[in-house]
Structures are given as C-alpha cells and as structure tokens.
C-alpha cells in the first residue's frame, strides 16, 4: 500500500531549527510541517500588524525558511506551516523574497487567508466559552478573532502546485491532514479516515514531544541524546495507518510510552477530539512498537464535523506587575516569609490597586501550594510577588515594592528582578462554519 512520510519541524514558535534541517536532509520525507502558533500568539501578532502592515507573522519565519527552503526545493519536499500568524500574505511575500535571494526560482508559495473573523464575531455577539459574557462585553479591549480553519484551503493550495503553504490560524492537526487528503484523495466526508488523519496530526504537531522531548525523568524514564533530539516522521498509509519514527542517529527515542503521552496531550474526552474537519475518536487507538524507534498507531476513527469553528478572541485583559528576590543560607525560608509579609503590607500602605495577587516562595511551595510541598528547609528561596492591575503604571509599583527590599527588607536579599506587562488573554467562541470563507493566494519566486 502507498505511504507518504511527513516530518514535523517545529512544535512551537521558538522551537529548535536544526532538527528540521536534519529531517529535510536525511528524513526521506515528502512533506515538512511547522506548527508555530500558540493560542495567544496570533493576538500579539495582530497588535504588531496594526503597528506595521508588513509585520504580524512568526519572528523565526525568515530563519527557518533560510535553513530549509533550498534543501526542500531540491528534494521536492513541500512545506506547510502556520507561521503566517496574523499576516499569511506578508509571510508568503517574505518567503518569496528569501527564495529569490537564495537563487531559487519558480518556487510557488501559497498564503491561506480567511481565518480573521473579527467582524463576524462582533456582528454575531456570540457567548464566550471560558468566561461569563458575550463578545460585545469585551468592547474596545478586543484585538483579534481568528477561526480555526480546516485542511481544505491547504489542500486547495497543494492542488494548485504550491511548494510552500503559509497559513494563519488553522487546526494544528490540519497542517498534517492536508497532505494526506491531497495525496490519497480522501473525501472530506470520509469521517473514519479524517479521524485517523487527526490522530496523525495530533501526534506530529508538537514535534519533539513524541521523540523523547518533555519525557525524560532520570532513573525512571531515561532518554539518550536529548541535546540532539530528533523530530518525528509520520509514515502514513492510504488507509490511515501510521508509523511514528525519526531520523536514524538523531537523539531521543520513539517508544510506546512517548507516543502514549503525546496521544493524550491536551485531550479531554478521548472519544471526541473536535477538529474543524471531523470529530475524532482516540479511545480505540492502539500503540505498538514494531522496531527500534518505530511505533505503529492504529484504530483512530471519526464522525461528522460539528459545523461550528472554534474561534480564539484575543483581548487586553489586565496588567501584571511582578517582583522577585532571593535569600540563602540558614533561615532563608523565614527571611523569605518575612519579606513577603513586608511587601504585602507596603502594597496596602501605599495604596497599590490590585484585583488579585500571589505571594510565592519559589523553592518551597510556589507551584502546588503548601499541602503538596511538605519537606525540609531549602538552602535557598526566591520570593515572588505578582499582582493584577488595571493599568501598567499601577503594575510597575508592585515590582518596585519588591526591589525596595534591598535596603528596606530582611538581611541578605539579592538578585532582585521586576517586570510589568500588558496581558493579552484569549477566550473562545463557536462560530457557524458557513460564515467563514477561506481562500488561497499564490505567489511565485
């Protein structure tokens, strides 16, 4: 049976680049996907685009394209990525510019647009999923609204002969489902195969998280060669069976355990993993090691899509001010506690307006609270105060009040750090899919 090999070259925006080069050079792949767009990233990118109409795509797009474009072109490897973020058209134009500089001619670069649904969201005033209220309640704090597109426009771009497809917001698995639909001619209502495709995309989209990254636990789960961690290759057959593997000689490991952890990563009900194109069912998936660094995945299925598209709305939520300071040696924990009490009282005395605050002892109980953190006194402790405010100026005062511990707090505090930042947060709505009209623009180098 015919199979194709798809490499995953990035699991997030800041990911390492050399494994993608390794995949292109030695992975025997026909497609290389880069998933680089976290929930909030597109809202921040939209802010950049508002300041500069030519900006708003992934900051590492240029570096990544320079690293892989020539190899991919020479081997006929198609690149599919959501590095277009808030501006796929500008990202595609930039890619063409880079191709020309590298002396690559005839490269076809497609931009997938239509995920920006800000106007439709405002018109429909849909209920927000994670918090109380409706779209209109966000008022002028709303920055962006992007619907998760399905694989169809990427397939359209591939059918038009694109060598590189640059999208904004699409369902992450769609980046990897599109080549399967394109190559094998899967129908867009073949729910069972699309469900299997969603399994493929889900397992590949976080790159190194399935090849031993984010997995090692010395003495319990050891992984060799993490510094040279290789990224995964999905070998997919026409009927949707999958083998996960990696470039021979690269670091890391593909085992049943690494695949199972990634299968359930960010999954809620495994019988309904909702994607734009299908509701996938992961509950009957089997995971079987069939050779060194080769794991077979079978048994995914699917049923009809919901007809609604999850849409991420980025909005200015608040401001967060933060300060940190370290204490060491005998009594470090007690001095840390005293420092927190002092800052807490000073923030009150000076009238800093916060709607919410945290007073953490890093090294003692900052992550999971006192009940789960029982243990002996640590040698060193770092205090952390973080508070939410309505303005940046107010947020600045929180870090300042931690820094003044230098000359106004317990003995031996050092390494003060402070920050204040605007918080762009994300909430979701469900948008009727028929309100969203994706399209494809092709540029040629």
């Amino acid at each position, binding site marked *: 049976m015919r199979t194709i090999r798809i490499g995953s070259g990035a699991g997030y925006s800041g990911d390492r680049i050399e494994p993608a080069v390794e995949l292109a050079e030695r992975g025997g792949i026909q497609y290389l996907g880069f998933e680089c767009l976290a929930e909030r990233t597109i809202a921040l990118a939209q802010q950049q685009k508002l300041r500069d109409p030519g900006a708003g795509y992934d900051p590492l797009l240029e570096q990544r394209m320079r690293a892989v474009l020539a190899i991919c072109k020479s081997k006929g490897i198609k690149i599919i990525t959501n590095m277009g973020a808030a501006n796929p058209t500008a990202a595609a134009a930039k890619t063409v510019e880079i191709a020309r500089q590298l002396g690559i001619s005839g490269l076809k670069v497609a931009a997938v647009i239509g995920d920006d649904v800000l106007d439709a969201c405002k018109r429909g005033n849909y209920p927000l999923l994670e918090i109380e209220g409706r779209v209109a309640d966000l008022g002028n704090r709303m920055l962006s609204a992007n619907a998760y597109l399905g694989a169809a426009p990427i397939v359209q771009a591939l059918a038009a002969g694109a060598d590189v497809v640059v999208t904004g917001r699409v369902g992450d698995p769609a980046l990897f489902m599109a080549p399967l639909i394109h190559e094998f001619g899967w129908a867009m209502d073949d729910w069972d195969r699309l469900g299997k495709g969603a399994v493929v995309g889900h397992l590949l989209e976080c790159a190194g998280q399935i090849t031993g990254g984010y997995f090692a636990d010395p003495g319990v789960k050891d992984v060799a060669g993490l510094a040279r961690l290789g990224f995964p290759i999905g070998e997919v057959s026409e009927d949707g069976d999958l083998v996960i593997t990696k470039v021979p000689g690269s670091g890391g490991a593909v085992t049943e355990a690494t695949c199972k952890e990634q299968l359930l990563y960010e999954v809620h009900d495994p019988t309904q993993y909702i994607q734009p194109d299908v509701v996938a069912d992961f509950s009957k998936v089997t995971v079987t090691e069939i050779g060194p660094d080769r794991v077979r995945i079978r048994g995914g299925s699917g049923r009809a899509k919901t007809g609604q598209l999850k849409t991420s709305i980025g909005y200015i939520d608040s401001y967060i001010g933060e300060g940190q300071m370290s204490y060491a040696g005998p009594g470090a924990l007690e001095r840390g506690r005293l420092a927190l009490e002092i800052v807490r009282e000073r923030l009150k005395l000076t009238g800093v307006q916060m709607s919410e605050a945290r007073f953490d002892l890093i090294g003692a109980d900052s992550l999971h609270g*006192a009940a789960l953190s029982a243990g002996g006194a640590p040698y060193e402790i770092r205090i952390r105060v973080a508070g939410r405010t309505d303005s940046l100026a107010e947020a600045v005062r929180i870090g300042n009040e931690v820094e003044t511990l230098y000359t106004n707090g317990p003995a031996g505090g050092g390494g003060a750090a402070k920050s204040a930042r605007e918080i762009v947060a994300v909430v979701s709505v469900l948008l009727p899919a028929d309100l969203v009209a994706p399209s494809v623009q092709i540029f040629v180098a």
Partner: protein
Amino acid sequence: MKLREIAHSRTGDKGNTSNISVIAFDKAHYEFLREHVTAERVRAHFADIVRGEVTRYELPMIGALNFVLTNALGGGVTRSLALDAHGKGLSSALLDLELPDMPTTFETRAEPAP
C-alpha cells in the same frame, strides 16, 4: 508505593482546564490504576489547586487514564498570575500520589538494564 513507580504522566492545558494522563508502564497494571487512581482521589490530591470538577476517562487499549480538571489554571493560561501558568508540573505532583502496595499476584515491571 508511589504512583510514579508504575505509571508515567503528562499534563496538557486548554484555557482554564488541565488534563493529566496516567499511563501504566505495564498494561497489566491498568486495572490496579483504574481501581485506585479515581477522580475522587485526584480531586482530593489537588484540593488547593482545582476549583472545578475532575472527570476521569478510561483508555484500556493503551492502559491509560485521562483526568480533566476544570477551573484549575488560575483563571486561564493566558492570564494566570501563577509561575507555571500552564500547570505543566501538575503531572509530577500527581505521580507523588500514595498507592497501596501492589498485590503479589501482579507481575512487576522488569527493571531496566543498567
């Protein structure tokens, strides 16, 4: 016995909801996990952290459980004041769960070669 001796785990995040997988190293231990690592135990373990519900999903084909914890990430990953806003470390906290010793009828996991 700690959960960490027979299972591994990874945390994922969506908004203000966390999911934590619990995967048996040896599928033969799945029933033991199913019996002892209940939604109630997980809720009690994270009493200071989870403000919502804990739901458990079962995946016998891969010997795993999946816990979904709502209202668990300080108001949501993108706005939380927490140091670990994603709750990435919750899986490690869950592996500290105390379990009864394994019945001797169970085969124990082969020790990895040194």
